[in-house]
């Protein structure tokens, strides 16, 4: 069974933000909500590295474990999704998530949190496939069309890759071999455990 994963290659990421705007474009994510972000370490100094981060679709997702209304589920190929009709915007998942993926749009002028929004691996949500409801609440469903996350498909340098864990590990391994360097699989251990 295929297991969907993300991998961001810090040696290739150039902080160009294509992954971020591709996501905005694909799902029309509103201003202020970012399903994906680019994190920079050592900004402006030697050793500067960047990494693109969104929900990593963890095995045994910590967000799901803490959700008081149990709105998370995992697809058979490992994509962590949630039901916005159930979500109460409590914010627990944000604290549980090692990657800071969950986002809470402000709902009112008084700052009450809205329903949580996060990366769906471009796989929609618990609404009929390609329905207007799915599109409006969760965004498009590329996975069901046989396509991968747009953020990864449009990455400027193919730093961000997504798909069946075996395939992307292979692609990445080849790269590391050519480079002759140390692998930089940022976040893999935290997300998927030791079994990479």
């Amino acid at each position, binding site marked *: 069974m295929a297991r969907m994963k993300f991998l961001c290659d810090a*040696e290739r990421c*150039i*902080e160009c933000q*294509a992954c971020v705007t591709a996501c905005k*474009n694909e799902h029309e994510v509103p201003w202020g909500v970012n399903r994906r972000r680019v994190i920079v370490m050592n900004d402006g100094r030697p050793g500067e590295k960047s990494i693109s981060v969104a929900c990593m679709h963890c095995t045994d997702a910590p967000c799901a474990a803490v959700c008081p209304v149990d709105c998370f589920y995992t697809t058979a190929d490992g994509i962590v999704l949630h039901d916005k009709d159930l979500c109460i915007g409590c914010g627990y998942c944000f604290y549980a998530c090692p990657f800071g993926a969950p986002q809470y749009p*402000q709902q009112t002028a008084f700052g009450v949190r809205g329903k949580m929004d996060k990366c769906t691996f471009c796989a929609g949500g618990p609404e009929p496939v*390609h329905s207007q*409801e799915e599109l409006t609440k969760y965004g*498009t469903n590329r996975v069901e069309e046989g396509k991968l996350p747009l953020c990864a498909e449009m990455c*400027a340098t193919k730093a961000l890759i997504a798909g069946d864990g075996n395939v992307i590990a292979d692609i990445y391994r080849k790269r590391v071999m050519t480079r002759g360097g140390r692998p930089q699989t940022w976040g893999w251990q935290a997300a998927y455990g030791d079994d990479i």
Partner: protein
Amino acid sequence: MKLTKKKAAGAGAAAPGLLGKALTRRAFLQGSGLAVGGAAVAGMLPTSMMKKAKAARRIDPDQEIREVLTVCGHCSVGCSTIAEVQNGIWVGQEPALDSPINLGAHCAKGAALRNHGHSTRRVKYPMKKVGGRWERISWEQAIDEIGDKILHIRDESGPDSLWFAGSSKANNEGAYLQRKLAAFWGSNNCDHQARICHSTTVAGVANTWGYGAQTNSYNDILKSKCIVMCGSNAAEAHPVAMQMILRAKENGSHMVVMDPRFTRTAAHADTYVRFRSGTDVALIFGMLYHIFENEWEDKEYLEQRVFGMDRVREEVKKWTPDEVERVTGASEEAVYEVARIMAENRPGTFVWCMGGTQHTIGNNYVRAYNCLQLALGNIGVEGGGANIFRGHDNVQGATDVGPNPDNLPGYYPLSEGGWQHWARVWDVDYEWLAERFDQEEYDDGQNGKIKPMNSGGITVSRWIDGVLEDKENIAQRDNIRAVMMWGHAPNSQTRLPEMKEAMEKLDLLVVIDPYPTVSAVLHERTDDTYLLPAATQFEQAGSVTASNRSLQWRFQVIEPLYEHKPDKDIAYLFAEKFGFADEMFKNIEVVNKQPTSESILREINRGTWSIGYTGQSPERLKEHMENQRTFNVASLKAEGGPVDGEIYCLPWPTYGTPEFKHPGTHVLYDTSKHVLDGGGNFRANFGTEYEGENLLAEGSYSKGAEIQDGYPEFDSELLKQLGWWDDLTEEEKAEADGKSWTTDLSGGIIRVAMERGCHPFGNAKARAYVWNFPDPIPLHREPLYTPRYDLVEDYPTYEDRKVFYRLPTRYASVQATDYSDDFPLIHTSGRLVEYEGGGEETRSNPWLAELKQDMFVEINPADANDADVRNGQMVWLEGPEGGRIRIKALVTERVGRGTVFTPFHFGGRFQGEDLLERYPEGASPYVRGESNNTATTYGYDSVTMMQETKTTLCRVTPA
């Protein structure tokens, strides 16, 4: 273009039950007309955006979706993308995985393109200012009023009183018509972005070895063993180029970045060298010093293919490691190390961008880079080259065939010969054309007189002086009185306070653009100011020339929104109003006052022999686009398929007629290939000898050439001398007699020369010594505003010039004052990945605008402490000519001590004031900020009038 439906993966093989179920459910939901999403969407929005909230787009999964292959409109990499269109609405964007240029990849801008399909922050219909307020008018009224006003000004002040900026964002067809419009109007007063981007490159490389363009390609970098980037921040300016660069690096190529700023590109380099902004000649000659000292130069190559390197060698001797360090700040070890890396890793490529061009001696920088690459034998080889990354998506094309003040399409000169050639192509009487121009003669700046038809027009960097300068000092009949900014941001030009004054002095200001741009708001004009909505790139079809010289066909995605019109249609309307549409469009197909792109390109094909824009018929280009997947990524050559053996999108030169089937040229001047296979050599454009020295190549020639030595360029006489005349057909003979390869409209001379394995432009040496330039050997000269005034005595700038591109131009008189005490910091500028150019279009795209909401200045911690400035604080940045901007401080080691950096994409604020209310309603960009060019200063390149934006001075104080 193809039609698809949203479908499930593997639908063909899938169990119909499952799919069937999905369809029924969808049908049910449609039937029940639910709008469940509404509340949820509103819930997702921050309050600030509530009012702007629109429901997510609708995509009907059961209706057909049209897939249109198009090309990104934001930079010269030329990334393809697939637009999904349903019912005329651009509903989705998919990666073009088949494109050999980007393999589906984009940067932030390219991945946000779909916003162009529904952006609302535009000029929606023609408008004019009446008593200080914007009013809507019709296109008819607009063209009528503007036309009458311009014609009236022409009556009073002659044709040169109109100046207009055309556009590097127009496609080749639009840009070509802009140049043709100026020609038929009777003036050379038109220009575009190339002037302030790579004009020094174009002039520098063309005068060195032949053509003013990138010699290799982004893809070819895959073959480089060493990549040196100087004044190029590709990670932000050409992000998808980094795909190839990083792949090359992974394959063992050594990546070097030399830049005053530790850029995001530098973060990936194996070796980074920081040096003082404005000292590239010293740095490069410092490297050449070690190369000559260690005899690393390619002696055979220099003997066979390069003229004048011995003269350069004399100058290089002066650049001892100590002197290099004194001037540039780079240590002997660092400079030696880069020289060694380049010497040991050949072929190596040298990349430069604005950091190397935007200087008062930009042409010297460019030629210093050229000398370095020539010394190492790196030009004309795969994996080598001068990889000049151009800026805008079609700046190369607009330079080749567009609105240039100093030449005609194809770089034909403004001399009578050049005009005669185009008059023949256009099928108009040369005398008639000549009479359209002002017939007086003016100072040519070289103790002679010249007619405006033959003298270079006023450049985009200086149009403000054409307005403000005393009439007596300008080498044309009157000041510029009317200006059209046709696809050009004003805030990318220096000296904005003076520009404001110039705009206010004009009789007429017309802005033609999808967006209002800073031109609509910088000034306080109340009348005689017009906004005309031009269509975006995605609302018209045409060819665009990427940096690597490939002409991609950009298919039209959607119909123009609102009342927008493509550039070519606007050109037609003006020509009609001015009364020469019949002549100008004589051989161009016009349907409903809309010239067709295909027929315009065919006219370009018929005339542009000099640079091989002749083989790229619309049919061939479209066929290449449709077969993208057949091209090899490293060689860009099709392997099998219908265009087997041709290079992707026929990079110019693609010599001869389309039927001649030249495959296009991937790597310029490459002698290892036959000319019919894209091979070549350096161009013979400067005679056959200079001061008794032979300028033709010696013992070097392209593969299979029948003349196995240097030879001059071809004309009918040479063919006769060689006994090749009878290779021509009778028709060709009739046309070719008395013509050269560039003016023979039959293409026969080119055909015969190439079939004999010879290059039509001859086979000569590259010139390391360019005797027709102010500094034949590139020299270091201190910037006009230098922080090192102590060096001015040794490295002074030029004398002032009385007439240069029709205007007095100051050098020494500016440098005469030492500003470095009051303005101690170097002010340099550049790009951000999220925005482009003047930035109005990208700042009007919410997906991009959200990512960079503040204008800022990068300042080193030490300088920040000296100025008592904290990170994130508002500061005043002030230039020595008085312009000042109120912006945020970003304290970072990215810039060295003594240098600050600002991005140039912001606009909509001016010296602390918000200009929001001057925008037409609903057309202001999401993000506004101070333009850095409010604080930049005077200074222009001595060959091309390039503005100095990379090295000036400033001071920073808390606001």
